[in-house]
């Protein structure tokens, strides 16, 4: 079950407000030509370790296959290097990406 409630990690409780501040600062540095929005949640991964799950909606142009590797690499690096989820928060980061059109069709609230 993944939610944004209090999550216990080996280094203590995650301060959700501080984490949100950190993540939001990182999101602001992403290019609006590539990224439409970023959602995230905290929970446990499949091996029960504390994790942060980023769900990133890309513009349709940035989602084209010939650009996807570069764009996802850049977005992942920016979020990883700014938030430092492993060192600062004890959270393993995971990154999932959808295009704007795909998200509009599915209207999945977890990605909104």
């Amino acid at each position, binding site marked *: 079950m993944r939610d944004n409630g209090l999550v216990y990690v080996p280094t203590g409780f995650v301060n959700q407000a501080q984490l949100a501040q950190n993540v939001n600062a990182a999101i602001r540095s992403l290019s609006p030509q590539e990224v439409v929005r970023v959602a995230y949640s905290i929970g446990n991964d499949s091996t029960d370790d504390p994790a942060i799950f980023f769900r990133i909606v890309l513009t349709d142009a940035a989602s084209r296959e010939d650009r996807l590797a570069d764009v*996802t690499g850049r977005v992942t690096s920016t979020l990883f290097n700014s938030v430092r989820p492993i060192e600062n928060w004890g959270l393993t980061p995971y990154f999932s990406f*959808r295009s704007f059109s*795909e998200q509009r069709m599915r209207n999945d609230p977890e990605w909104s």
Partner: protein
Amino acid sequence: MAYHDELLQQAKDLVHRNPNNPTQADLRRSVSSAYYALFHLLIFEACLNWSNDISRRGLARMFDHGVMKKVSKKVTDASKMPYAGEDPVVVDKLRSFAGLFVQLQEQRHEADYNIKDAWTLTQSLKEMLAANRAFVIWQEIRTEKISQDYLVSLLIRPRE
């Protein structure tokens, strides 16, 4: 063609099979094949170091997904694995490779077991491209000492 290369090719074929209307089966199996391509690449590379040909098959069976993920997570954590004195370029590449392995194993788990959330073409393409990237990185660092140490460590459950 080696088995891990066949699996990566299968991941590419499946995700491209019907781009205008991809099936959930193709998208999910592509992610699964992408992960297993990486899993078998590591086993293949580790077994190359075992000189006794007859024992290689037995050695290959010793690899455990959970242990490999734990070890790879540790490699991505600079506080646990500082790699002091090592070439920072190689260290960065090994950390990237290990991070891609962790990501792909998790996504494989989601693709195979979480039926509630539908996969999209972009999600699956991204995982296939991640596996492809990991193959490229591995070719660049496979002979480095820290990469060889990483291969050995994949067989050993790390201490908490």
